[in-house]
């Protein structure tokens, strides 16, 4: 297992190296160059020259690249133009919000998606099956930000049963030490605060969860359809095993492999979706911060975030691979 992990990390290095070169070149090709990107378009030539000297943008490209990568390796992602604070610090304060949101979205997507996909395959061609197909089509074709609007309008404006925006009611004077608001509330025993933070997570979580939901339903359905007709399932039936055992340990467990892979691959979609949903719900996470960075062309933030996501992506895919060997011991043998 350790060797597999080591090999995966070794494979990651060239990708990250290439990404760092691309990102480096990307900043240099922004309109007006990096100094203008830092100062804005109305910067005077003197100011541009001063920034060029200060940051070394006037030095040869290769020297600049090595300075950049050196800093990156020390965990220095630069300073946000919009807020003036180090990029990594900004991420650290906002990331928990997005993680909370993503967890809710994934719980929703997996909790509904896997049983629904399973039921659709069991009752192939019947009502459950047809409605699962329709549901997943809707999930794929309705833009996540539009869905967010619909939820917000219905649940927050029309029926007023859930809060329309934010992470927590500002009137609740909650203590925060982990920045995971729900967890904070639970740890400090401030139940109101935890409950309120949770209520704020429902609408954006549902909106964000719909895309992975649609995909999970589909993959589960297809995968169960394939496994339930496998020879070993027939053999198990012939042996007279309990139907419950056959379904749980033979069909579902074997059908889960592609589902787990798919869940791991949803990260990119979830991050893009978070940018959009957090914008609609004024949810102060990394997605909304990123949207502001896009607007203000805050390139150190965008640059840092892309590297951060690439690493996260790789870690999650590694975890997915490791989880294979738990679900399917045959993978471990090979």
């Amino acid at each position, binding site marked *: 297992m350790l060797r597999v992990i080591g090999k995966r990390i070794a494979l990651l290095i*060239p*990708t990250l190296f*290439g*990404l760092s070169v*691309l990102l480096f070149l*990307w900043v240099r*090709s*922004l*309109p007006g160059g990096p100094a203008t990107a830092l100062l804005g378009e109305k910067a005077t030539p003197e100011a541009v020259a001063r920034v060029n000297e200060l940051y070394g943008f006037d030095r040869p490209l290769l020297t600049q690249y090595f300075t950049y990568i050196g800093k990156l390796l020390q965990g220095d992602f630069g300073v946000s133009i919009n807020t003036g604070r180090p990029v990594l610090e900004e991420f650290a304060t906002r990331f928990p919000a997005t993680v909370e949101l993503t967890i809710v979205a994934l719980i929703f997507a997996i909790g509904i998606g896997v049983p629904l996909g399973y039921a659709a395959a069991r009752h192939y061609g019947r009502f459950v099956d047809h409605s699962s197909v329709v549901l997943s*089509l*809707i999930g*794929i*074709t*309705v*833009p996540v*930000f*539009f869905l967010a*609007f*619909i939820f*917000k*309008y219905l649940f927050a*404006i029309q029926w007023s049963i859930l809060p329309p925006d934010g992470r927590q009611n500002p009137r609740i004077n909650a203590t925060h030490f982990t920045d995971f608001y729900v967890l904070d509330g639970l740890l400090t025993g401030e139940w109101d605060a935890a409950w309120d933070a949770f209520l704020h997570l429902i609408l954006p979580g549902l909106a964000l969860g719909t895309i992975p939901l649609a995909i999970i339903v589909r993959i589960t359905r297809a995968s169960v359809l394939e496994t339930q007709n496998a020879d070993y399932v027939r053999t198990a039936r012939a042996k007279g095993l309990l139907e419950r055992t056959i379904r749980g340990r033979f069909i579902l467990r074997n059908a889960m492999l592609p589902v787990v892979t798919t869940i791991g691959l949803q*990260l*990119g*979609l979830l*991050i*893009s979706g978070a*940018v*959009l949903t957090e*914008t*609609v719900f004024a949810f102060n996470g990394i997605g909304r911060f*990123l*949207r502001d960075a*896009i*607007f203000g*062309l805050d*390139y150190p933030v*965008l640059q840092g*975030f*892309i590297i951060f*996501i*690439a690493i996260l*992506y*790789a870690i999650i895919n590694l975890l997915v691979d490791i989880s294979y060997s738990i679900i399917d011991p045959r993978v471990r043998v090979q």
Partner: protein
Amino acid sequence: MSAILPPAVGGSAAPTDPAIETGGGTGLWKDAFLRLRRNPQAIAGAVIIGLFLLVALLAPILAPYGGNELPGRTEITPTTIPGPGEIGGYPLGLDRFGGDLLSKLIWGAQASLLIGVVSTALGLAGGMLLGVLAGGFGGWVDNVIMRFVDILLSVPNLLLAVSIAAILGQSPYAIMIAIGVSQIPIFARLLRSSMLSQRGSDYILAAQTLGLSRGTITMSHLLPNSMGPVIVQATLTLATAVIDAAALSFLGLGGGLPQAAEWGRMLTYAQAELSIAPQLAFLPGACIAITALGFTLLGESLREALDPKTRQK
């Protein structure tokens, strides 16, 4: 290749199925087309896309007002925006700026479909170029290209598009190019793997035995036979391109006037009026979703039609 082939090959035998009569045999594409015609899902998709395409093309005739015109500027107040049927001359009411909602939806169809089609064409062309180079030549060319594709795939699609749009500045063309380029890696990888799977086929071996050059084999044998999955993906990508284009302009990229007739942009400005004029968000949103649905239905029935596993039926 299929059980359907025998009687009709070469057009010599008398075909029994009248639908096959016109051609000399059922090739992969012809068969796919015949099956598409019988699939209600495909027809629904084609009708949706056909309607939107028609609206987009006839926008100058159909739309009562221009896309950027604000004919009802004097009819709106900060707290009231006339909704559908509430004011004469504007069947769907006005928007925040005083534009005619119906006209803007019609012009928006033009903008969205144009962005979707152009960007997908761009992504397809770029992806095919890289895919052919990688899949046709193999070796170090393949290695270099696929590592590059891996790097691009390690960035979420929307972020990649945003980064490219940032270089190109604020314009609708920037969105087209950005979305197009962000699709290149998917097409490249798909075409390459499709070509690799064909490489060991007997007909390729036959072509090699005949002494055909590598270029000829790649371009006239390998490529045409590997296009199936790519074309399916392109149809499905049209749906994501329309959604992504709306997402980018929803986030404020793409430049132009704030009142520009573009579905994603209309949603941006509908945000603040959600409680007094929800139709400003719902109608453009529904347009995006229905267009995407049309392309998805079409793409998925095409996938089914081209799938050799289900072809015989």
